[in-house]
């Protein structure tokens, strides 16, 4: 038996390859798909006969990601009449994909790193497990491809079988036991000779020479080039031509962000939760329930796409999330999407050694917790209308177990037929099976919640995200600043630290709370109770009073409260400051904290973004290279103060 790079290689004639493929097609267990023509282009599609197979293709319109993360995919079916009758969706039957080029195989291996991390995507995993990949070495190089520069024009892994065209016959490199068995069962072949192995190497070397498009910057350098040129005019300039069509992200093998929406049947009895491709080039990608869009400017969205590929994912996972297939360059009408062109344009500008400046390491790796998509069943125990816009809910998980959260974490609240929304937990950790949330009526899920009553069923995923590291706050003074509905997540922390058992672990506590107007102030009674606790000082202010308000407290922005803090009481080094509020508040409050001499490393903030999946996959909540759903929502200010997108 002859081996290439310690892999077994066989030789198969062109005719016998056809027979092999036809045998596979006849084998009913698998759907057999392969590269075939579609008009003037090539696509992966179902094969009826080996004669359709075009292993001499240059590039397909869509990469094979469509078989692992389909453009539209049912995650679950549910019944609207019987609450919590959820059926997890079946995943397609086993599949064999024939003719995958090395760069697409490498793209799948990259997707694995994201989708098969500690929070595995079950649907993706099932498809990966029941798919056999028969790759083929490139025979014709696509004009737009620069795979050789990305070193993705050949691969040693990620396939079950790899075909290499040797002129009059094919070499088959065996990549897995599954592939070997398939070959033995269905193909007539002979062992490869030393000459054949040499020829394979020659063919592969020759492929590299055929690429017209070349990078001027090694892919290992992308991260440092991008780190140095975040504010380069190229982003604004090139994006002026962008039509915001999103095509570049749709056709990309390493763009795997998604959106999820609920669809219901016209009789309102059944529904499905559908996952579909989304792209960071599209404006509503970062839209949240309240209407805020976090990356509104096309220049910033355009830049984000390249940074995700060339800096954010490389820093997080260690791979450049571009395989040089050139599909985006083909799909982009004004021809501005090709990373090769962009990076080459930047090639003679500086590099930065600080490549990781847009990324922070996750504090605690979240343990695998069953499926990431199917929520747990829960019941509303109690509701209370707090203000015109806010409503309080006590929720109990139906398994009667405590939620097990730490202060600052959030849950995805799910209403079947309406959707999911990320909601902060508002109660402190407790051994009770219920927890509390307060929602502001802004989007579809929260509006629907407003109409729900005790006894109604909900879905809960979580707790999710990084909460407050309460242990590290021990023996410190605490200065808590909440603005507006920031008091809702802050309450989970306050309840914890003022709890009889925990109170003594912390020094004195100051709670500052600024509401827009008296009628919008939340938890006033509790606020008064907190004031009565030893060494807990509370200050409440409203931005303004309108006629008819009965208000004897302070008026003015929350920033007016800081000068009242007696500095001498505070050993600023020993004070932990926590800030939660609307985006606009952070800059001003943090300035006040700095004036008080509190170092950045002692300041913690909780940020709001569009947390859709909650498990670092869908891409919506990114602040530069940081996932708010995983590394946040609670951040140490020192870690994120230099992230350009954090406090824009």
């Amino acid at each position, binding site marked *: 038996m002859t081996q290439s790079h310690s892999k077994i290689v066989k030789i198969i004639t062109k005719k016998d390859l056809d027979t092999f493929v036809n045998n596979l097609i006849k084998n009913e267990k698998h759907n057999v798909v392969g590269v075939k023509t579609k008009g003037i282009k090539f696509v992966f599609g179902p094969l009826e006969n080996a004669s359709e197979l075009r292993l001499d293709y240059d590039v397909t319109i869509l990469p094979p990601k469509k078989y692992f993360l389909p453009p539209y995919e049912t995650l679950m079916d549910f019944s609207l009449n019987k609450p919590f009758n959820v059926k997890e969706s079946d995943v397609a039957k086993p599949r064999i994909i024939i003719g995958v080029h090395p760069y697409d195989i490498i793209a799948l291996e990259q997707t694995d790193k994201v989708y098969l991390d500690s929070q595995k995507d079950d649907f993706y995993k099932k498809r990966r497990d029941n798919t056999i990949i028969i790759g083929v070495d490139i025979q014709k190089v696509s004009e737009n491809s620069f795979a050789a520069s990305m070193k993705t024009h050949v691969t040693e892994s990620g396939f079950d079988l790899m075909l290499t065209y040797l002129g009059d016959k094919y070499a088959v490199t065996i990549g897995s036991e599954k592939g070997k068995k398939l070959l033995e069962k269905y193909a007539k072949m002979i062992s490869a000779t030393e000459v054949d192995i040499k020829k394979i190497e020659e063919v592969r070397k020759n492929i590299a020479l055929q690429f017209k498009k070349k990078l001027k910057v090694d892919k290992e350098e992308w991260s440092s080039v991008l780190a140095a040129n975040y504010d380069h005019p190229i982003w604004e300039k090139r994006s002026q031509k962008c039509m915001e069509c999103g*095509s570049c992200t749709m056709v990309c093998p390493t763009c795997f962000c998604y959106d999820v929406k609920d669809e219901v049947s*016209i009789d309102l009895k059944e529904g499905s939760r559908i996952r579909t491709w989304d792209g960071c080039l599209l404006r509503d990608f970062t839209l949240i329930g309240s209407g805020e869009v976090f990356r509104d400017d096309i220049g910033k969205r355009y830049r984000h796409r390249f940074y995700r590929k060339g800096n954010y994912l490389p820093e997080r996972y260690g791979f450049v999330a571009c395989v040089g297939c050139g599909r985006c360059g083909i799909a982009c009408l004004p021809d501005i999407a090709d990373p090769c062109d962009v990076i080459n344009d930047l090639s003679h500008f500086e590099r930065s050694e600080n490549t990781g400046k847009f990324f922070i390491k996750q504090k605690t790796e979240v343990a695998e917790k069953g499926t990431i998509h199917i929520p747990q069943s829960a019941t509303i125990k109690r509701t209370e209308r707090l203000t015109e816009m806010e409503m309080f809910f006590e929720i109990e998980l139906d398994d009667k177990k405590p939620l097990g959260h730490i202060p600052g974490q959030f849950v995805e609240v799910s209403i079947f037929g*309406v959707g999911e929304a990320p909601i902060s937990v508002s109660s402190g950790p407790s051994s009770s099976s219920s927890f509390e949330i307060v929602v502001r009526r802004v989007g579809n899920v929260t509006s*629907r919640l407003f109409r729900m009553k005790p006894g109604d069923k909900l879905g809960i995923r979580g707790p999710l995200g990084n909460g407050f590291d309460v242990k590290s706050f021990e023996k410190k003074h605490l200065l808590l600043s909440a603005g507006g509905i920031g008091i809702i997540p802050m309450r989970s922390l306050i309840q914890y630290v003022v709890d009889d058992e925990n109170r003594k672990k912390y020094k004195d506590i100051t709670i500052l709370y600024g509401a827009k107007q008296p009628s919008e102030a939340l938890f006033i009674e509790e606020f008064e109770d907190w004031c009565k606790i030893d060494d807990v000082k509370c200050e409440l202010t409203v931005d303004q009073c309108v006629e008819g308000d009965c208000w004897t407290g302070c008026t003015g922005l929350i920033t007016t409260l800081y000068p009242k803090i007696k500095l001498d009481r505070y050993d600023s080094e020993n004070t932990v400051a926590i800030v939660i509020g609307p985006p606009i508040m952070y800059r001003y409050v943090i300035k006040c904290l700095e004036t008080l001499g509190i170092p950045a490393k002692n300041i913690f903030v909780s940020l709001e973004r569009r947390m859709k999946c909650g498990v670092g996959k869908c891409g919506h909540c990114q602040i530069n290279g940081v996932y708010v759903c995983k590394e946040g929502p609670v951040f140490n200010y020192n870690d994120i103060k230099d992230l350009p997108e954090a406090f824009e």
Partner: protein
Amino acid sequence: MKTRVAFFDFSSCEGCQLQIANLEEEILDLIEIVDVVSFREVMKEHSNEYDIAVIEGSIMRPMDEHRLRKIRSRCKILVALGACATTGGINKIRNQWPVENVIKEVYKDADIKDNEFFNAFQTKAVNEVIPVDYYIHGCPINRDEFKHVITSLALGKKPVIPTYPVCVECKKNENVCLFELGKYCLGPITRAGCNAICPTNGSPCDGCRGILSKPDVECVMEILQRYDLTYEELKSRCTLYNTNVFNPKDGMTLVRRSKND
């Protein structure tokens, strides 16, 4: 009580209501979740008591405006149905000429003086007369989108109408890009939601669902050159539904807008 829905038609072919009538057996499910109290195309009963008014057609005359205002005052939610209602649709083609000339061209010497039925003004979309709550775009509408809007409203949630362009759906369908076949397609700037039905079947997008963002002129010119297309092709593609993007009288009015509306 079930939500009461009434359908009304103004200047249109009534083809969008026909799309609803064509739901066939699903109509039975529809009337399970809502009370249809007025729908000229399929029933003779009519009531002036309704919660949701669905308006098909453009507004062409003072008497239309008057009728539309009355409908608005009676309903809680008003939905514009189809391109004629949502953008003015093909009825806006005639806005490139003075309305007097149009009337003269059509009615020649007929005696229409002081007849309010012929008292036309420049075509208006529904939202140019009264506020519209939700839009079901297209010429004709996409039945699935209609079902999405109706079920959403019945469930008390806000329907989600795509704010991204047809290219997104077209790419998901893995179509060969029509530009590569030498056709000028409005897909990159037209609101999706039709599942890219025209490009998927080989016809360039005519932009019937409305334009999302007007691209940079320089960029359009480059694209024309890159794909060996002519300005004439762009012009003809825009005249059907989007004379507001390309006005034959004023020439190119393609100016980038910073935000989608």
